[in-house]
């Protein structure tokens, strides 16, 4: 079976084509502004949609009618952006008479990770611009065992970069600073049970820039932020008694975060998995995989049910495939 998946929750418009066994294509184009303006991002997605779709089909060497099911990220995400993928998917579905399935973006991240790594029943640390969640499967649902109480970790990093005058996107520069900078103790470390909050840490790190170098402030900021999420993840692993960690999302690319997760897992005899970056960041292939998974387990959607869902929570999704 072949599934074509379309992703457009935030910056990235992506089209992925997968079978049960492999990714045939995973093409994307990202909106690049400082921060994100939902309507402008949506305009970008609408503009590149046709081209990215063609690229993906060419790469997979198939035509639209060769696909058995079309899926799209139904939420959560920015409304105007979400609607582009939904519209594309509906058009394909109507025109070619292919069944349509809308899937949850966060769960697609987890499931594609389980697909391409050896993780079976992991605790997932999902870190991206908008999302920072600790997800684990329990009692027939993917449940959130910890999450940010305010902004996503990537968003925090972006704001710091922008305020400190780093070129956008700042993560490459900041990854470097985390490696070369000197850690200055004293920044807030806000873990509340299994949840964490970044806004106070961000404010203090920006104040630190006035007295120290941007490099050292960035290092200190990210060390604390990563330590907070890793600590909360470890607590979730202890609480759920699970022995696998899956790290995913755009921020999963951070070498330092990967290193910290790896150390934490080693110290508690757990296994650590990170999918390849192309499947960690927002991408079409994960939506395609999720669509295939749900479709093959009996999920069907009428066109009326394909309305986007901006605030669709991870634990609201009914899991039929596990």
């Amino acid at each position, binding site marked *: 079976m072949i599934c074509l998946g379309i992703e457009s929750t935030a910056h990235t418009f992506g089209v992925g084509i997968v079978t049960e066994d492999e990714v045939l294509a995973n093409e994307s184009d990202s909106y690049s502004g400082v921060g994100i303006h939902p309507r402008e991002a949506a305009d970008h997605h609408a503009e590149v949609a046709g081209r990215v779709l063609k690229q993906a089909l060419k790469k997979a060497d198939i035509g639209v009618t060769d696909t058995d099911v079309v899926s799209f990220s139904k939420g*959560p995400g920015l409304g105007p952006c979400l609607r582009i993928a939904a519209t594309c998917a509906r058009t394909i579905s109507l025109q070619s008479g292919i069944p349509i399935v809308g899937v949850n973006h966060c769960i697609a991240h987890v499931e594609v990770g389980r697909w391409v790594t050896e993780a079976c029943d992991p605790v997932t640390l999902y870190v991206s611009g*908008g*999302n920072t*969640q600790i997800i684990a499967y*329990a*009692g027939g*649902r993917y*449940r*959130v*065992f910890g*999450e*940010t*109480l*305010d902004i*996503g970790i990537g968003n925090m990093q972006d704001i710091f970069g922008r305020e400190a005058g780093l070129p956008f996107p700042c993560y490459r520069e900041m990854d470097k600073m985390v490696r070369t900078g000197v*850690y200055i*103790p004293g920044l807030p*470390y806000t*873990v*509340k*049970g*299994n*949840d964490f909050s970044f806004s106070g840490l961000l404010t203090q790190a920006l104040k630190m820039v006035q007295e120290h170098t941007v490099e050292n402030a960035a290092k200190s900021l990210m*060390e*604390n932020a990563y*330590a907070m999420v*890793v*600590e909360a993840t*470890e*607590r979730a*692993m*202890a*609480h759920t008694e699970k022995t696998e960690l899956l790290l995913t999302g755009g921020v999963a690319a951070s070498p330092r975060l990967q*290193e*910290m*997760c790896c*150390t*934490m897992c*080693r*110290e*508690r005899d757990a296994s650590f998995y990170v999918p390849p970056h192309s499947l960690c960041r927002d991408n079409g292939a994960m939506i395609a995989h999720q669509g295939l998974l749900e479709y093959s387990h009996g999920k069907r959607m009428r066109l009326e049910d394909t309305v986007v869902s*901006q*605030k*669709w*929570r991870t*634990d609201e999704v009914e899991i039929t495939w596990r």
Partner: protein
Amino acid sequence: MIRIRKGAEADLYLTEFSALYFPWNSEKVLIKKRISKGYRQPELDHELRQRRTIHEAKLLHEAKAYVHTPVLYEIDTEDCTITMEYVEGARAKDDMTEDMAEEIGACIARLHEGGIVHGDLTTSNIILKGSRIYFIDFGLGEVTTEIEPQAVDLHLLKQALESTHYTHWRKLWKKILEGYKTRSGSHDVIKRIREIEKRGRYSKR
């Protein structure tokens, strides 16, 4: 001395009072050792472990005025260990009834009224021994009478119920709130929980 649990931030060891102190007491004693985490900066690691050890000991002691907590025997701030009474019972995680939930709510109300916020209220940190309810693990606690941390405290418990006791968490939560309402000012705290939830990602507003 045997290790009975490897928690997220501490290892727990079980030994006997007589082996550590005086021979005339055969009570079981628990040693909680906060272990160093290789993933975080050494300065941060030491500061967190030390701060939480001192904090926990202080709060375990102060909380005694309001709820049951284990008896403290010894604190080592360099080694980051607390030696305390071993409370032999069932974790609320494994065995929680609605009656208990109401009593737990009342306990939290007393703690909050006394100016103590637990900071990590999960059902793993509440132990049931006979008819007594013990609270453990005050490492993330705070001494405060502010509404916000009190509401976060309850919000965390709600989340723990939701994720661990998914079949009947609503009933348990309702009972906990009923118990909590025994204190003055509970209305403001409960109202604040709703506000905190609204701040979360993708919550229903």
